[in-house]
């Protein structure tokens, strides 16, 4: 048994300690966003946020995560109430097949939490661990910039209230 906090909810999971987080998220918790891409930490499709850092869930055994707080794309917002980042990706139409997108968005989210105004060079460098085979990179970059703008505007608005 492993205790995980995922998107704010605590779960007791019946999984062997070596089980990668990815399979617990997808199978036990029935979450769709984190994807199996390579199982090797080479493509980034499985990326989630653990304690503020982007992590490859496909190579992270659940044994290392006992008591840790995990955020997946589902934890950012919903289809009815999308987060700033999700709205930015929709606005920029930053997906083709979309298989890679959840992982990319989680690393972008981690970046924007640490650095609200990253430069284009920083965004590119930060997203280097991720592969997109459809060639949607230009839109993804625009969407991350747009998310930074939306988040910044929201912070200003909150501060004003």
């Amino acid at each position, binding site marked *: 048994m492993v205790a995980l906090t995922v998107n704010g909810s605590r779960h007791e999971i019946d999984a062997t300690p070596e089980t990668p987080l990815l399979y617990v998220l997808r199978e036990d918790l029935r979450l769709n966003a984190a994807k199996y891409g390579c199982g090797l930490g080479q493509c980034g499709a499985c990326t989630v946020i653990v304690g503020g850092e982007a992590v490859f869930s496909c190579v992270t055994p659940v044994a290392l995560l006992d008591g840790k707080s995990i955020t997946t794309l589902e934890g950012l917002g919903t289809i009815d109430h999308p987060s700033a980042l999700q709205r930015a990706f929709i606005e920029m139409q930053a997906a*083709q097949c979309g298989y890679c997108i959840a992982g990319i968005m989680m690393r972008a989210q981690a970046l924007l939490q640490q650095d609200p105004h990253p430069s284009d060079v920083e965004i590119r460098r930060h997203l280097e661990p991720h592969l997109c085979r459809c060639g949607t990179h230009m839109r993804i970059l625009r969407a991350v910039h747009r998310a930074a703008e939306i988040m910044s505007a929201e912070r200003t608005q909150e501060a004003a209230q």
Partner: protein
Amino acid sequence: MMRQARVWPNPGRGAIGGISRRAALVGAGALIVSFSIMPAAWPQESETPDTGGSKLPGSLAIEPHLDAWIKVAPDGAVTVFTGKAELGQGIKTAFLQIAAEELDLPLEQLTIVTADTQLTANEGYTAGSHSIQDSGTAIRNAAAQVREILIGVAAQQLGLPAAALRAENGSVVAQDGRKLSYGALVSGNLLHVTAQPASKLKDPSTFKVMNRPVQRLDIPAKVTGGEAFLQDMRLPGMLHARIVRPPSYGATLEQVDLATVGTMPGFVNAVRDGNFLAVVFEKEFQAIQAMRILAASAQWAEKRALPEQSRTAEVIRGLPSHDYVILDKAAALPGGQPSTGVGAGVNAGASIAADYSRPFQSHGSIGPSCAIAQLDRNGMLTVWTHTQGVYPDRNAIAEMVRMPAQRVRCIHVQGSGCYGHNAADDAGADAALLASKMPGRPIRVQWMREQEHAWEPFGPAMVTRATASLNDDGGIAGFTFDVWSNTHNMRPGTAGALLAAQHIAAPFPIPEPKPIPQPEGGGDRNAIPLYDFPAARVVHHFLPDMPIRISAMRSLGAYMNIFSLEGFMDEAALAAKTDPVEFRLRHLKDERARAVVSATADAFGWKNRPHTANGTGSGFAFARYKNLAAYCALAMEVEVDRDSGRVRLRRVVAAIDTGQVVNPDGVRNQIEGAILQSASWTLYESISFDRTRITSVDWSTYPILRFQSVPDSVEVHIIDRPGLPFLGAGEAGQGPAAAAIANAIADATGKRLRDLPLTAERLKSAINA
């Protein structure tokens, strides 16, 4: 309720098949009629429906009933049906835009059903940039005809002439304000009628939904963790399987320990059928652990059967060939010699000649292939698959599991982008084979990364040779082009195309490869230049022997042929001391071709482009995909680091003419993607192999484009062509992007690289040579 089977009209290629027609009442009384047509009505990969003399537009030629495309329920809900599959290219949204436009309905009121052997027309494969051209044309015409039928019924009911009525927002409206909703007008078999050859299509100047950038309907779920992919499907009682694939082509299983995995938690089954080996478990990671243990115990006899990788081009050139002369304008040459054999005549005294090569390349889907299959208690085998062709895949699976095709249903569910024939069909076959042996619960097969990389059918290696003689005016007088290639289509249709069927104890033979005929072509796709040369000869050397497992990869031979031809046009322009854009225009008569070339050159600022100081260069390329789909011209600025040979893509400008546009943002997304994907193929990609095994089995051994190497900017301009037929766009950018990169590198360095990929290592040694 079953209706009697009848004979389907011969679509024109000698294939008459029986259809079983199934009618079912669905929802609140709308009639759903489905057709199962077999065999496939037209050749694979070259998907223009053969109309056999019929004049019905698009895919209406293969499925003429209006209600096979559009159904209207009594509550007014409208469902659009297409035999094409959403592959991430956005066709669901585009099809609904088309239907909404012609039916005068808000987009939100429509739903769509895609490729399903029980519900949709047999539109063959979703391939070759045919979806909007074929299915989109059918949907547009069907929707327009449905609208007119509904107006006709309203005219009768209101006692008014049809001309006095108009369709508006889901109703037929009279001038006096009376209106009847579509739902109220539809009844019985009203729409179960055969389409007419001509439709009353909307005037493009009145479009409200088409030719507008509409947000894709599938994206919100994809960015919020919705169930968006086959990989996300979880059926009740679903089991997880993993396959243990042989280590190499032709390997035979000598020994394996099936007992050990039987003691592992969650064990359900371990299956051996010849060289097909699989484990089935309750949970997914249990299956993966068991797969590893089973693989470690398996002993295989392997064959040293692969060519020497470093000699790939030479090996390809040396394979026995069937030669097809696909263009021969030699006779038109004043004093031109008669053609007396392949390559003879046209350019005996050629002033320039060049050889180009392409390695085997991978589709490289980010999500390895996946499928779910279930043999239910009624003996119906259902396969959820991300195949590009549910009908041909269904037939192949049925043959493999020795069941009648009518008892196998293939339902397309979106997978990771496939870019052609990847392992999708093989995964479907794996799941179907296991389900056929284990009736009851649904079985999910997920391929592992290394399996997808090692076993997918690759994009074929190719070799080309171009020659030209120049006339005194600096134009091309005579031109020859030769292309050596395997087929680009080993898709299923028969069982032997499926890996599982090749591996089982009673295996099915790999089908005979066939060339895809012109005008679409396979290895020779786009081998015929669109330029007007006084004399020209193009020969397709079709190579039946396939040393590596290959099949269709996005744009087929067009990628390599355009890379070659458009690189060669620059080489010829250089020899003629003429600007490359000017040189192209000099040989280009087609007005739409000239328009995209000029639009690109203007938008890029070709005339004022930066000069080649500091390793910077610009390249240009043009092609009309298949010489019959979208026109695309592209200019690119690159910067070469002379010490490392590394190429930085700075700026890309493209113009595209795709006929009537449905979703401009969808077209841009496709072209942007084509450019970046092609840049990846062109700069980095080649599979690797030793004499026995494929050795590129992950993203470290098969590196592709990453974020730090993408261009600074990509700009796509769409030429507005209101009212002209749809022209397929999805694969129009690949060839031009590759050639523009090579041309820009040559401009920057003075070095012409002709062997793909144009790696930093190759460029560095060319610079230092």
